[in-house]
């Protein structure tokens, strides 16, 4: 990595939404006008003190920011290497980082005068956050969710319905996250005049990767401040799981121009890097254009999108956010993957050592830390972005552990 040659992070994306060769805006013509309108509204809102004050207030009073930076002493001592800190996004209202973005975008939708909100969801965390915030602001809410994901995250489906959202099961394609995105886009193509689509990750067409990233930058900004207070310096390494990449880019952005901080994104290795059995785009993917942007995509010999698999619905997606592809090329962010069983190990470890139930998505970052921390010195600091809590996953984990004959007695 040569920081001299990496463009100023503030200059990205460019006016067309590009991060170097990645990103952009690849959507049907019907959506171009409302994406431009959204970009304009966002550019204005960003500079408006009133918008920022309202967002800060909601993040604090409704969502519960700032979240703690917790020293995981038992886990650190057991692993015998770096001091491990957990950024507790799991303690936010609704149980994951997703609400940072939802609050921001709902305030934007209000400025745009849109009364109806749609969203896709994989693990259900983004859907729950959206349904919740819509209930609070009195907006109509429709959530698209793959039928397979509705099954494995049924608790979250119920939570969304309790908040008054309509949850529409998607029966086409692979019936997971990407199909839910397709369906939400189809809705938006016909409804954009009165509807705002809250995309749930740093993905899709411009301006979404930029807006979603900006809404989560608070995570890294807090880590920096908290670490300064705790240790008087930046951490040595930060690790986050990467589905579309929102919690990761949110945690990393603050540190992109601090080369002493190593940044690592962890993708879902599923059952191993075989076509169709994983969701590690940087392991088996190629550059392509999918669901609005140019990025790394899992695809077959003919450009058709490959099926994906991960034990965690939130990482089970064929494309990665374009900004990640860019910083990987630059050598600024490193990427690794954790398999389903690695993630389960991480899940169990954090439950036992710290009494914290992580989301299966976040468990991928923990799995990485299990291997990484022992390689680091005792005076080094490793931060894990704990993107969500695992309540939603308890039944799924129980099913898997039962199958493996590992149910705790």
């Amino acid at each position: 990595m040569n920081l001299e040659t990496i463009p100023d992070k503030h200059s990205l994306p460019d006016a067309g939404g590009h991060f170097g060769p990645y990103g952009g805006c690849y959507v049907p013509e019907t959506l171009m006008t409302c994406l431009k309108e959204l970009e304009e509204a966002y550019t204005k809102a960003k500079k408006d003190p009133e918008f920022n004050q309202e967002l800060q207030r909601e993040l604090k009073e409704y969502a519960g920011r700032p979240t703690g930076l917790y020293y995981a002493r038992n886990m650190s001592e057991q692993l015998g290497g770096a001091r491990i800190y957990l950024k507790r996004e799991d303690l936010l209202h609704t149980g994951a980082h997703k609400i940072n973005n939802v609050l921001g975008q709902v305030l934007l939708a209000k400025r745009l005068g849109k009364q109806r909100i749609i969203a896709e969801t994989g693990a259900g965390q983004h859907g729950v956050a959206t349904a919740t915030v819509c209930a609070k602001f009195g907006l109509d809410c429709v959530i698209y969710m793959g039928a397979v994901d509705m099954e494995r995250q049924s608790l979250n489906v119920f939570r969304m319905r309790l908040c008054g959202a309509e949850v529409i099961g998607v029966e086409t394609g692979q019936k997971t996250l990407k199909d839910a995105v397709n369906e939400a886009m189809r809705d938006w193509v016909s409804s954009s005049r009165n509807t705002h689509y809250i995309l749930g990750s740093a993905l899709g067409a411009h301006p979404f990767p930029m807006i979603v990233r900006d809404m989560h930058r608070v995570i890294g900004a807090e880590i920096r401040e908290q670490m300064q207070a705790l240790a008087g310096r930046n951490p040595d390494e930060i690790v986050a799981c990467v589905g579309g990449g929102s919690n990761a880019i949110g945690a990393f952005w603050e540190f992109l121009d601090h080369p002493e901080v190593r940044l690592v994104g962890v993708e879902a290795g599923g059952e191993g890097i075989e076509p169709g059995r994983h969701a590690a785009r940087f392991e088996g993917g190629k550059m392509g254009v999918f669901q609005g942007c140019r990025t790394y995509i899992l695809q077959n010999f003919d450009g058709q999108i490959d099926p994906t698999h991960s034990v965690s619905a939130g990482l089970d997606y064929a494309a990665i956010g374009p900004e990640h592809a860019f910083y990987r090329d630059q050598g600024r962010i490193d990427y690794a993957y954790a398999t389903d069983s690695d993630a389960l190990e991480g899940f169990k470890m954090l439950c036992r050592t710290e009494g914290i139930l992580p989301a299966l998505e976040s468990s991928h970052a923990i799995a990485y830390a299990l291997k990484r921390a022992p390689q680091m010195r005792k005076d080094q600091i490793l931060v894990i972005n704990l993107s969500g809590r695992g309540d939603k996953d308890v039944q799924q984990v129980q099913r898997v552990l039962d199958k493996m004959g590992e149910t705790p007695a």
Partner: protein
Amino acid sequence: MSRIQKTFQKARDEGRARFVAYICAGDPDYETSLEVARALIESGTEVLELGVPFSDPLADGLTNQLAADRALKAGMTQEMVFQLVRDIRKFSEIPIVFYTYYNLVYFHGVENYVKRAKEAGVDGLLTLDLPPEEADDLLQACTKHDLETVFIIAPTTPAERIRRIAGVTTGFLYYVSREGVTGERADLAADLEERIAGIRAETDVPLVVGFGVSRPEHVAAINAYADGVVVGSALVNCIKRNLDQRDEILPELRAKMKDLCSGFDLKK
């Protein structure tokens, strides 16, 4: 003059819109799809829009999604779509336009793809998720290999954008008469006449209109204002309805074509 230009010149000379039929290449399988194309052309299709099946057709409604699924399940590949064009070219000279998604083009290398399409006998390329802002590579390749471009105009497209889109369109413009995805609909958008007048005020590029056209009255209405009328889902549904009795597919398509084309003789 190219096949596309000749076809729309004739439309204007005769004062009648051309019939543009959409089907998904390889639906429900290669052989049937070739026969479907033959039947459509024999019964009045004047421009063929060939959908290249994609796993994630986000601008398409359920009818076309399922058609793409059937084609992919039957083993359709990009090379077979090119072959289908070559086979159609053995019996027809009507303009053939690909209706596709950008990843399928990008994956094969934009220039290579355009060259192969042209060599196979394709006349134009409509890439649904590629706005002019991102189309530089494709436009260059199309210029170089003499493949025409087709772009979409939506009800939400403002006037200055219509000019921009028309400026990069070398084949024809496709006005999607409704916000939404493809699919049959009971009636056309109420503001059609006004919208088309708005587009005509900005550009003289040939203009076809579609999305939801499924009845002779729709054909009649569009015939009054446009250079072409596009019918997709209504034809694809003739295939879908007869998957268990495939002998019925062609007769039903011919009957549907006859019914739709009768719209050209209806007064608006």
